[in-house]
C-alpha cells in the first residue's frame, strides 16, 4: 500500500517536468527556420498571398504564440494533442498507431542487449584475461563505437541480401493478414493464434532489434563484467564457498544479484535512447514507428506532431525510470522507493 502511494507520488511529481518540457518544445519547434505553410503549399510559386493568408489562418498560425500555446494547453487538458496539418489526422491517433511499433522494437533491442550482454559480461568476469574475455571486450568496444546506420546496413547486407535468412525491411510480410488488436504485432499474432504472422513478425524484429540493441549490449557486457569482478571479490562469496556452495552457484546466486544493480542503472538511462534514439534505425529498416513519424514531421514543420511525440517520449522515459527504481528497490534491500 505504501509502495503504491509512493509510486503515485512519483508519477504526479513528473507532471511539472512534463509541462515545462511541452512548453519548451512548443516554443523551440516554432524557432526552426522554415514556414509550414510554405512547405504545405509547395515551392511552385503560383500561389496568391491571399491563399497563403487563408491557410495560415485556418491552421491558427496567424495568432500570437502565447494564444497558440494557451489553446494547445487547453486541448491537452481535454486529452487533445492537436491536429497534424501534414498527415491531416489527429496527432493522438498518429501516435497511437506508431508507438506500438517503436516500443516493440525497443523491447526487442532490450532483449538482445540483456540476453547477450549479461552472459558475456558474467563469463568475462569469471575468467578475466581469458581468450573469451579479451575477445568479448574487443568486440564490445567495436559495438560501442560503430554507428547504428552502418551496423544496420551491414547486418542487412549480410543476413537479408547475401544469406537471405531474414527479411530486411518492414514489420510483417505484406502477404500476411493480421487482425490488429493492440498494435504490437507479436502480441496480436499470439492473441489471434496467427502462427505464420508470429513467425514473420519475430523474424522482422531480429535485424532492427540487433542494430538498435548493439550499443546497449556492449555497454551491458562491460558494466556487467566490472561489477561482477567486484562482486566476486567480496567476503560474502568466500563465506558462501566456505558453506559448501559450488563455484557457479556462488557466481549466479550470490554475485549476480548484487552485480545487477549497476547494470539496471545503466539500462534505465539507456531506455530513453532505445525509445527516442531510434530515428536512424527506423529509417534504415523502414520501420513504421514513432521515430520515422517524427523525422517526417520535423521536415514538414508539423508542429503538433513534434510536440505530441516529445511529450510521449518524455512520459515513457519517466515511466521507464520508475520501473528501474522499483527493480532497484527489489535488488537492493537497503533501499526503498
Amino acid at each position, binding site marked *: 500500500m505504501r509502495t503504491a502511494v509512493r509510486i503515485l507520488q512519483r508519477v504526479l511529481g513528473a507532471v511539472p517536468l512534463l509541462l515545462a518540457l511541452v512548453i519548451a518544445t512548443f516554443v523551440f519547434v516554432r524557432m526552426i527556420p522554415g514556414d509550414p505553410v510554405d512547405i504545405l503549399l509547395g515551392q511552385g510559386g503560383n500561389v496568391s498571398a491571399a491563399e497563403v493568408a487563408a491557410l495560415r489562418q485556418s491552421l491558427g498560425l496567424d495568432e500570437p504564440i502565447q494564444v497558440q500555446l494557451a489553446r494547445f494547453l487547453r486541448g491537452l487538458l481535454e486529452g487533445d494533442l492537436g491536429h497534424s496539418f501534414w498527415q491531416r489526422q489527429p496527432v493522438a491517433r498518429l501516435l497511437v498507431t506508431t508507438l506500438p511499433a517503436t516500443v516493440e522494437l525497443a523491447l526487442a533491442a532490450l532483449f538482445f542487449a540483456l540476453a547477450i550482454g549479461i552472459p558475456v559480461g558474467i563469463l568475462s568476469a569469471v575468467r578475466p584475461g581469458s581468450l573469451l574475455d579479451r575477445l568479448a571486450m574487443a568486440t564490445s568496444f567495436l559495438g560501442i563505437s560503430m554507428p547504428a546506420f552502418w551496423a544496420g546496413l551491414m547486418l542487412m547486407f549480410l543476413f537479408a541480401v547475401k544469406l537471405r535468412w531474414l527479411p530486411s525491411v518492414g514489420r510483417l510480410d505484406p502477404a500476411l493478414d493480421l487482425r490488429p488488436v493492440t498494435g504490437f504485432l507479436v502480441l496480436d499474432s499470439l492473441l489471434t493464434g496467427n502462427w505464420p504472422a508470429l513467425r514473420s513478425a519475430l523474424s522482422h524484429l531480429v535485424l532492427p532489434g540487433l542494430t538498435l540493441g548493439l550499443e546497449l549490449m556492449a555497454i551491458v557486457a562491460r558494466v556487467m563484467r566490472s561489477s561482477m569482478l567486484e562482486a566476486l571479490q*567480496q*567476503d*560474502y562469496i*568466500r*563465506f*558462501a*564457498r*566456505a*558453506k*559448501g*556452495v*559450488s*563455484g557457479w*552457484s556462488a557466481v549466479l546466486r*550470490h554475485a549476480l*544479484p*548484487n552485480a545487477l544493480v549497476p547494470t539496471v542503472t545503466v539500462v534505465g538511462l539507456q531506455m530513453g535512447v532505445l525509445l527516442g534514439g531510434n530515428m536512424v534505425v527506423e529509417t534504415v529498416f523502414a520501420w513504421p514507428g514513432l521515430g520515422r513519424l517524427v523525422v517526417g514531421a520535423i521536415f514538414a514543420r508539423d508542429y503538433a506532431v513534434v510536440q505530441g511525440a516529445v511529450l510521449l517520449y518524455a512520459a515513457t522515459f519517466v515511466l521507464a525510470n520508475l520501473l528501474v527504481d522499483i527493480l532497484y528497490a527489489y*535488488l*537492493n*534491500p*537497503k533501499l526503498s522507493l
Partner: protein
Amino acid sequence: MAARHVPVPEAPAPVLEVRNLTVHLRAARGVVRAVAGVSLRVAPGEVVGIIGESGCGKSTLLSAIMGLLPPGGRVAAGEVRLAGWDLLRLPERQLRSIRGREVAMIFQDPLTALNPFYPVGWQIEEAMRVHGLWPRRAERRRRVLELMAWVGIPDPARRYHAYPHELSGGMQQRVMIAAALANHPRVLLADEPTTALDATVQAQILDLLERINREQRTAIVLVSHDLRLAGQFCHRIAVMYAGQVVEEGPALQVIESPRHPYTQALLRSLPPLEGERRAALEPIPGSPPDLAAPPPGCPFHPRCPLATDLCRQAAPTLRWAGAVAGAGRTGHRAACHHLPDPAEEAIS
C-alpha cells in the same frame, strides 16, 4: 627428578593436521611465500589459537585449509588432513561436500561476509540445503530457527526474514556462526571473529564460541592478533611470524613464560594489565619483513634484540623449550637459536 625422558602419553588422533604447509601467493612484486612450512595439530574438541601481526600468513593458512585460496594462490608443498581426508588431493566436488559440513569458517566482518541480497535465515538455511542432510524444507526451516535461538538470536521467527543490514554487528556475527554450525562441523575456523565488534559484544561472541566448543565438542582454530585474548580462550597457541610458526605450546605456558623473543615483544607491546609492574606498552621496533624477499636466517633477526651472526645466517627450527620437555600436544616449542638448553634448565 628430571622429566625430560618421560614419554608423553599418546596424544589423541588429531581431527585436523597441517603438515609442513607452504603457500605461494602471486603479488605485484612477485611470488610471496605467505605460509612457509607450517605444521599444526588440532585434537578433537581442542581450541587452538594462531597469533600474529597482520600479514603474517595466518588468514592465508585458513584459506589454504578450506581450499579457498584467492586467485594466484597455490599450495607449493605440504599436506592438510581432516579426519582422514587428504584435503589438498581431493577433487573439488568432494572438497565441496566437506566445506561447511566437516570444516566451517567464520570471518572477521560479518556485514561484508553476509550477502546483502538475501534474508539472514535464507543464508543459514543455504548451508544446510547444499549438503542435503535435511532434504525436507520444513525440517530445515525448523532447524534454522532452533539454531538461531541456540546462538542467542532473540525472536528467530521474525529475524529469519531480516536482511543483514537490519541487524546489529553482534547479531550479524551470530547469524554467521549459525550458518557455520548448520551441519555440526568437526572443526570451526574463526578468522578474527571479534575484531570488528565492540568490547561488550566481543565478550558475548567469545562466550558463544566457548559454548560451541564445550557443548558441541567442535574444535576451534581461532586466528587473532590479540595474544592475551587467545591466552584466555585457547588450550594451545601457535605464534606466527613471516609465514612461520615461531613458538607454540599450551596457552598458559606461552603467555606466562614466552620463549621466543617475538612472543616476548608481542606481550610487551600490549597495554599493561592492572597490577602489572611495567611502564607502558613498548612497540616492536621495525616492521614485519617483506615476504617477497624474506631476510636470510631467522626471519625475526632484523627486529630482535638478541640477534647474532648465527641468527643472520641460519634459520632456527622449532625446538623443545621450557622446563618440561615433551612431545606432541603437551610440548612447548620455539624456533630460536638462543633458547636455553632444556637439559641444563631442567637440572638447575
